[in-house]
């Protein structure tokens, strides 16, 4: 089935934030917001959150425990080799653990970003408006088939009122698969 999007184009990040706020206040569901750079305050307004900090912490804990387990097993259990009268379970394991916590946490955080964002080599980028990569900002609202012409007009009016320089209605490409931003 064909999906039609109403796309409001903005020139300025502050106008975009204002527009998003207004559209949300009117109770209209926003599908996606595009910007050429991270616009601060947008995530809060859209109610977006990420659990990546918690995950990174867990990766760090995992990295520390697995490293310690490995060092303990190799040095104390598998092949205990006493030299210089030093303890087998050595305090200097901390250095390797410190480094490998960073290694594990960084690598897994990086992978988590790609897995959660569902991007990776070979993914085709389908842009609703390629100008949003350069200097335009866009609010995308999906046109519900149940919308009356008055409602559509009202949405376009709200967008225009709050700084949108253009409001376009476009058919969504079939292979467009972005997560909703709200």
């Amino acid at each position, binding site marked *: 089935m064909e999906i039609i999007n109403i796309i409001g184009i903005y020139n300025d*990040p502050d106008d975009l934030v204002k527009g998003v706020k207004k559209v949300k206040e009117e109770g209209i569901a926003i599908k*996606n*917001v*595009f*910007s*050429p*750079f*991270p*616009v601060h305050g*947008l*995530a809060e307004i*859209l109610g*977006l959150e*990420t659990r*990546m*900090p918690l995950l*990174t912490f867990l990766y760090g804990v995992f990295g520390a425990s697995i490293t310690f387990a*490995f060092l303990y097993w*190799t*040095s104390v259990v*598998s*092949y205990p*080799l006493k030299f210089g009268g*030093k303890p087998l379970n*050595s305090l*200097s*394991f901390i*250095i*390797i653990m*410190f*480094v*490998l916590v*960073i*290694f594990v*946490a*960084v*690598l897994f*955080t*990086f992978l988590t*970003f*790609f897995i*959660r*964002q569902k*991007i*990776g*080599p*070979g*993914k*085709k*980028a*389908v*842009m609703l408006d*390629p100008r*949003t*990569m*350069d*200097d335009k900002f866009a609010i995308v609202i999906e046109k519900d088939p149940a919308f009356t012409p008055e409602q559509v007009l009202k949405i376009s009016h709200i967008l225009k009122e709050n700084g949108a320089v253009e409001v376009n209605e476009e058919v969504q490409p079939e292979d467009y698969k*972005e*997560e909703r*931003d709200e």
Partner: protein
Amino acid sequence: MYKTSVRGILIPGNKSYGQVANDILHPLEAKSPPLWWYIVASLAIGMTGFGIWGIYTTVTQGIGTWGVNNNVGWGMAIISFVWWIAIGHAGTAFSIFLLLMRQRWLTSITRTAEAMTVLAVICAGIFPLLHMGRIWNGFFILPYPNTRGPLWDNFNSPLFWDVAAITTYLMTSAVFWYIALIPDLAMVRERAVSKVKKRVYALLSFGWVGTARGWLRQETAIILIGGLAAPLVVSVHSIVSMDFATSVIPGWHTTIFPPYFVIGAIFSGFAMVMTLMIIIRHVFRYKDYVTQGHLDAIARIMVFISMFMGLAYATELFIAWYSAGEYEIFTFMKNRVTGAYYAAFWIMIVSNAIIPQFFWFKKIRNNLVIMFIITIIINVGMWFERYVIIVTSLSKDFLPSSWASYHPTVVEWANYIGTMGIFILGLLFFFRYIPIISMSETKGILKETSNIKEEKHGNH
């Protein structure tokens, strides 16, 4: 909270968002690279070829082709290794300053500094591998189940810590660099005209489109990885210094080594970044992005670090005397300040602790030619610092009967020059195929920090 106006306008010229991309991408979108690019590239290829000959000789004939001997067992290879790792530190240091201290003025520098880090760490990594002598047995350094017991690595050895630290450092800086690069590669993809270019950048940009959720995740990932990389700035070179400090050789066995090495690393890294930024600013006409103010600020930091270097040198000498250790005093007073290697010692002092003091003068901070020359001098001086540390301490230790001198051979020089060729070649490819300044971050600071705002809102 962080929107102070201390730094003033960061990007002058009242640029629009579209203009930023045009300005930054012009070297990348030019039909062919400029003439100097080809000249430098052929020079770099020549250097790399010389290096490949050196590596081939080292691998096929062994370490005997080097000037190292039973006493001076570490020569050019370890000097170059420490030198390259140190240069790599600036990228991470810059990014951490930028991210964790919200120093947004560094935005236009971090991309280059991080690219430099990745390349420098790759160059550094070549030397320990070569120094093994039997490079085909290099995998012995990894703890893998084997039929010898299984006999594991010695996890209390600084040499193993080095392996872990450098691998982690390379991976972290590459990941950190790339994750910030994705939106810019997507930008190049959207602008690309030729089919091949579009394909390649589409593959590299991983299908990035720039939704609000994407940006939130990307920014969070950058902050998390940056925060994790912050301790690496301190830890990597501390671990490198422990290769020396955990031994009993006079001149090495000191507790000052970890901070001394870290400060030295940041110093030489900043010098290399400054060298590169002066070049980039000039040849790519990025004067509005890398302003005089940027270079001035880096120069001020370098005066500060240079005084630290002076303090470290003075502390070493003082502690050698104060310890009343016969061998320590001999190493420092008879074999560094005076003696066969006095020239290297004084080159180190003059170029790291004295010449950078010229940065106190505003006239010099405004003169790019002099600044460029000083940064080169600093990098040479930092090379001599490692030379002094490694060669003097090893050449004359406890027993006069085992004293020896060290003269690098042409093979060792070839290895060193070869890595320089790899470094320059890598940078040239970076200049040609990757946006040199982060566009998404520059656009992000454009409105807050330039005069674009007043003009636009004047019309409302």
